[in-house]
């Protein structure tokens, strides 16, 4: 049973709609998934992997396979980012899991540069609906591609951290990294 050969042939035929693999990070094992359009999902260690993959099967395509090689670029960019050697990602984002105002809020978030922060209210305004602060918060809380779509750069008015899917320690770690504080 030669699984590697099967994956290679499936790949050559364009039959793998979602490729996923594990990616190590300073805060545990992440799972990243890409489509032909870009990175579609990044899950923290605490998320239940079966649920993450089933959601991809339901909402993108059931042709989901583990293909570590397809994630090489994502892995390299994330490594460089975690080491403080990269401040923007070149891998495009596949936005197909985002719709309506959530999509607008996440696109506005994607535009926040490395090292900067916005409040949830400012993000809502940047997304075109200044009064939709709570919805902007939800869009961040359910961000399918954290880190790459940098929801950690969105804080409460007054500077409190707010929430974070990967846990507040991770949010703090990422903000410190971008301030240049955490590097040795």
């Amino acid at each position: 049973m030669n699984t590697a050969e099967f994956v290679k042939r499936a790949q050559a035929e364009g039959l793998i709609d979602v490729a996923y693999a594990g990616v190590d990070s300073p805060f545990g094992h992440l799972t990243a998934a890409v489509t032909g359009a870009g990175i579609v999902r990044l899950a923290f260690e605490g998320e239940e992997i079966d649920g993450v993959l089933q959601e991809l099967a339901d909402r993108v395509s059931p042709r989901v396979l583990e293909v570590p090689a397809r994630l090489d670029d994502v892995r390299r960019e994330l490594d460089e980012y975690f080491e403080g050697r990269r401040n923007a990602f070149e891998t495009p984002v596949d936005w197909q899991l985002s719709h309506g105002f959530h999509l607008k809020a996440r696109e506005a978030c994607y535009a926040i540069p490395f090292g900067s922060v916005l409040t949830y209210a400012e993000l809502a305004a940047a997304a075109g609906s200044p009064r939709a602060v709570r919805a902007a918060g939800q869009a961040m809380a359910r961000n399918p591609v954290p880190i790459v779509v940098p929801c950690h750069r969105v804080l409460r008015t007054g500077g409190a951290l707010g929430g974070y899917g990967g846990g507040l320690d991770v949010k703090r770690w990422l903000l410190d990294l971008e301030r240049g504080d955490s590097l040795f």
Partner: protein
Amino acid sequence: MKLPPFQMLLDEHGSDVHRYLAARVGPVDADDCWQETMLSALRAYPGLRHQTNLRGWLLRIAERKALDAHRAASRRPVPVEVVPERPAPPAERPDPALWQAVRQLPGKQRAAVTLRFAADLDYAAIGRVIECSEDAARQNVRAGLASVRREWVR
């Protein structure tokens, strides 16, 4: 019905399908058949509807690939006088000669016996794979076993 990620089919049923094919077409052709089975399955997967038994579905595809392999093999030239030595097949079948006898059985009996003992399917599941009733599946297994036993005793 929600379709699970294809990776799950591969993890949960891939080795069963391979075991079935090894018994069905022999260890040498099993690898090719397995690749073809899984590629066909992956091609068709998003269009699958009302499929509650994914393992049975995979085994049905495997059965078609096994038949293709038999047809291809019957067209291959048969070497005479000198029989080339083949490397020993992987030791996954406890008794290769016995399975060789199973492969001599007529179509449905061969498939039924293999599904029963190499893929460990019950008679209802075998019926779904070879498209016959549960009783007919049981009958095919019984008849197949009887002739293997006759061959074996002789």
